[in-house]
């Protein structure tokens, strides 16, 4: 399920079946020209990625809106904010909270996150329309799906 009216309507009726939130963590900045392309591309890929996972497991998963943060910003502040997202979800109760990201910076702070971090190394550049990328995403989605299922 996604953060759209149709899905949310369904969610309210089937609350007891939905216990997992996925939050994509996506860095954003405009200050470093050399990294812009890479970060924008990763942001696109991660959004697609998150949607694909949601599609496979839509009946039990709520895909939250993307969480954007300033790459150069204070990690501590962001951690607080992210954890307040988790806190809000946990009251529902959503028992499983997953963060997906391409940003390795979160790996260091994994312990402080209220939820499970799924850090995906890899994709720096490529063509979103290419078949290789499609099958790459497809395979990754399958594996991450397996991983998420193991928590159920």
């Amino acid at each position, binding site marked *: 399920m996604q953060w759209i009216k149709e899905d949310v309507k*369904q969610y309210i009726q*089937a609350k007891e*079946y*939905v216990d997992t939130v996925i939050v994509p963590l996506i860095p954003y900045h405009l200050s470093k020209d050399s990294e812009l392309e890479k970060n924008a591309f990763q942001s696109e890929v991660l959004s697609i990625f998150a949607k694909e996972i949601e*599609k*496979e*497991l*839509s*009946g*039990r*998963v709520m895909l939250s809106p993307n969480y954007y943060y300033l790459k150069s910003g204070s990690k501590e502040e962001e951690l607080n904010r992210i954890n307040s997202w988790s806190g809000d979800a946990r009251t529902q109760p959503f028992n499983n909270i997953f963060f997906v990201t391409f940003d390795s910076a979160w790996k260091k702070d994994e312990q402080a996150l209220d939820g499970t971090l799924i850090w995906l190394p890899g994709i720096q550049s490529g063509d979103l329309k290419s078949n290789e990328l499609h099958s790459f995403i497809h395979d990754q989605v399958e594996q991450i*799906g397996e991983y998420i*299922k193991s928590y*159920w």
Partner: protein
Amino acid sequence: MSEKKQQVSRRQFLNYTLTGVGGFMAAGMLVPMLRMAVDPVLQESAAGDLVNVGLAVEDITNEPQRVDWKIDQVDAWYESKVGKSAWVYKNDNDEIVALSPICKHLGCVVSWEGSEQFPDQFYCPCHGGRYHKDGQNIPGTPPTAPLDVYESKVENGMLYLGMAHPRGEA
């Protein structure tokens, strides 16, 4: 004699020609406009078309296999490629069956023999919904309806699939 020969006078001839040419030009202008006006009617709905899913009929076995394909979908804001998938197999009467993998409970994607405990069944990983091979839901599991069935046809040895319909409606 000469009277009879001149049944078409010069004036008449010019009239006819001008009317003819004028009419032709008018039609040339009007027809595209008319076509534009009724265009939505003429356009075949993309959704209703059956699409070649890239699976040869001889490759279809009694064992359900997953096929994925893409269709163009236009909604109010976007035109996009939408991924579709189906579980395809031949039943005992040698008929091709294409089932939608979307669980009728809350819309997860089911897989054939997705759980080792339940061979020969479709299994939904989200809440343990199960279906028989023919798509019939198994009572006692969350789904309350059988899996949707795709419209299908075979052309030149390839499988074409269209829309998925709830069973009974198709």
